[in-house]
């Protein structure tokens, strides 16, 4: 499923115009992004949470040259699936 499919399903499920369905998806994705970036995190009951994780600086190896290089510390986005999402993907 792609973003356009999601927009179309949202449009079919509601009385929104297509433009508003598209705007809704963009607003939701932007709020998730802001929640992660600010470090606050996002929590959606039944779906999961989005967080920012810290990665320490480490000595990496360039796989092409075998050269050792310093990789700086960084922050990465992280998703933790919720209980109900975990259950539903295993229901066959």
């Amino acid at each position, binding site marked *: 499923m*792609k973003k356009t499919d999601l927009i179309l399903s*949202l449009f079919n499920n*509601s009385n*929104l115009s297509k433009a508003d369905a598209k705007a809704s998806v963009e607003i939701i994705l932007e709020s998730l992004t802001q929640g992660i970036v600010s470090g*606050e995190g996002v*929590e959606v009951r039944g779906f999961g949470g989005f967080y920012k994780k810290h990665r320490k600086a480490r000595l990496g190896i360039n796989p092409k040259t075998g050269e050792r290089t310093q990789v700086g510390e960084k922050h990465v986005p992280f*998703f933790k*699936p919720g209980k109900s999402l975990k259950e539903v*993907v295993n229901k066959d």
Partner: protein
Amino acid sequence: MSVTKKDIADLLVEGIGVNHNQALSITNDFFDLIKAALASGEAVKLSSFGNFIVREKSARPGRNPKTGEQVLISARKVVTFKAGPKLKKETQLGV
């Protein structure tokens, strides 16, 4: 304070001028639609955000960390999220 469905709904009220109940139902639909796709084993790819993929994990021997007892962890499916380049970059910058 983490961002919740209520916060997202508030932004929808502001952004597209729906009332609070409609905003909440759009928010619920959004997550339910993604969940339903994943439940059917379909990957969800949202450009400018990231991809949700269902992966099959095979059974493996594990250990109960509390008792040290050996147990078999059964084969199962898990949802993984891979952030897209835009989200990764913004998280890194920490705007």
